[in-house]
């Protein structure tokens, strides 16, 4: 089974009440189940990445969390109350992927509006500075580049003392250096003790910033833990070596703990859940591998391994049901 590793949640069992709580949440659009029986709890101070392929239910999950949509069933609370109430109390700041900006106004005016609407707003200059938009404060909103727009959205999400910040694919449209700066701003939010939840499909982003990663697939939580735990769960080692003579694929395919096998020319690439045992078995076959390398799997490969494994399980289950 590939469902929830609740390590992160377990570690917090003694911790204070959850910031976000999803209990058996369901949401369908017509025949599509966007979110299926989701149970999720976020705790104060966590930086959580919501990871998943397109259509995995990331945006739907965030929409439900923010009260932009209502679940079909289940109970959902933010700070022990409804999303709407929590937002009115100024506890939540959010930056939406689909969130447009008002046009016909200057950046400074728009941020001023966000301040006016926030019960616990920060001084204007501080917000502009945190988001790195002091230099574009007098530009018209409609004339910004994609990356600048994203920073303005971030400013709107951090205009006041929020306890939870929700960011949906925040670095889309940013170049590498802008992304680095943005991560810095995000980390500072987390360092100030805020709970940060962000959806992303950049795995390096999840790996570098989040202390907890939740992998979604088909509207369900596929894995939940630190990025190291997610990697371990996916069969986390990659073994590469060269062989002389003819290579017998079937023999290699029967190696223990093997999760994938790729042969190109003389080079063999293996993914294994227990690299030590696999390599030992290679020698046991009487083979002599050259240039042997054993490396950890990146989060990206781990992610692909996890989601494809789950897809295969789902397909098999569907076929069995027929």
């Amino acid at each position, binding site marked *: 089974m590939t469902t929830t590793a609740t390590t992160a949640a377990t570690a917090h069992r003694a911790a204070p009440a959850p910031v976000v709580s999803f209990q058996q949440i369901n949401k369908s659009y017509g025949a599509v189940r966007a979110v299926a029986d989701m149970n999720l709890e976020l705790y104060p101070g966590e930086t959580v990445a919501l990871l998943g392929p397109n259509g995995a239910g990331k945006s739907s999950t965030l929409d439900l969390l923010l009260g*932009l949509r209502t679940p079909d069933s289940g109970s959902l609370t933010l700070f022990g109350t409804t999303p709407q109430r929590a937002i009115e109390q100024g506890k939540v700041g959010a930056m*939406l992927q689909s969130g447009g*900006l*008002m046009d016909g106004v200057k950046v400074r005016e728009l941020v001023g509006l966000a301040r006016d609407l*926030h019960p616990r707003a920060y001084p204007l200059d501080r917000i502009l500075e945190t988001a790195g938009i002091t230099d574009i404060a007098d530009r018209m909103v409609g004339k910004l580049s994609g990356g600048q727009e994203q920073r303005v959205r971030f400013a709107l999400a951090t205009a006041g003392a929020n306890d939870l910040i929700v960011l949906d694919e925040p670095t889309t449209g940013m170049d590498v250096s802008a992304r680095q700066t943005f991560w810095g701003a995000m980390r500072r939010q987390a360092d100030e003790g805020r709970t940060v939840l962000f959806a992303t499909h950049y795995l390096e982003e999840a790996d570098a910033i989040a202390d907890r990663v939740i992998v979604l697939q088909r509207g369900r939580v596929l894995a939940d833990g630190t990025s190291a735990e997610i990697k371990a769960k996916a069969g986390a080692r990659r073994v590469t070596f060269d062989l002389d003579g003819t290579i017998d694929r079937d023999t290699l395919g029967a190696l223990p703990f093997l999760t994938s096998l790729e042969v190109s020319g003389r080079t063999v690439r293996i993914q294994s859940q227990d690299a030590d045992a696999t390599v030992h078995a290679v020698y046991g076959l009487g083979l002599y591998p050259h240039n042997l390398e054993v490396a950890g799997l990146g989060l990206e490969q781990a992610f692909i391994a996890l989601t494809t494994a789950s897809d295969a399980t789902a397909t098999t289950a569907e076929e069995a049901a027929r």
Partner: protein
Amino acid sequence: MTTLIKLEIIRALRNKKFMFFSVIYPPALYLIIAGGADSTPIPGTKLDMGLYYMVSMAAFGAMTAVLLGNCEQIAKEREKGWVRQLRLTALPGRGYVSAKIAAAATVSLPSIVLVLIAGAAVKGVRLDAWQWAAIAVGTWLGSFVFAALGVAIGYLVSGDAVRPVSMLCYFALAFCGGLWMPLTILPQWVQNIAEWIPTHAYAALGTAVEAGGAPHMKDIAILLGYLLVFAAGAAWLYRKDTRKA
């Protein structure tokens, strides 16, 4: 909330193209329609065509700017996701609707004043000072009703349907309220129904003043009623809007 109202007004003033056409269109239309009108009184009233059309075109022009302007703008803002972003703030529904009405009122006031100036300067309409003031203020305040209706329609209908639906409402209201032609030439039963249409009450504010009296309480009550219904409906639709686009 006051910042939003202020920003919406600033935006309306900065939108030069929209402002220009919204302000020029009503007096131009007035001069074309009332151009050949003579001073024979319209059947059933004491007003001639020049007077009648001055008020009804001021009303029609103001309604054009606020109703169509709001519908279009809101449809665009919903599509762009600005409204979603706004819903993640503590802004109450009434704040949003007030801001939209305020922005619309910024555009409708100059258009009304221009129609009245055209009436006085080109059509030789002569009224007492208090009548000019009462017509201008009444027509301006009355336009709030249609601004609120614009917000409601902008939320009720989405995407591509906004334009046809708003145009349909706009023409139906203009025609049935007698803004294009006096309803006194139509059968009595049509007139009885028309009395309850907001545009009819709207134009009646001005025509009552032109005839030398105060606006009828009934018309004021009808307009207030519609304003309340449209504004409350718009605020409710804004808060419950959960569509993505």
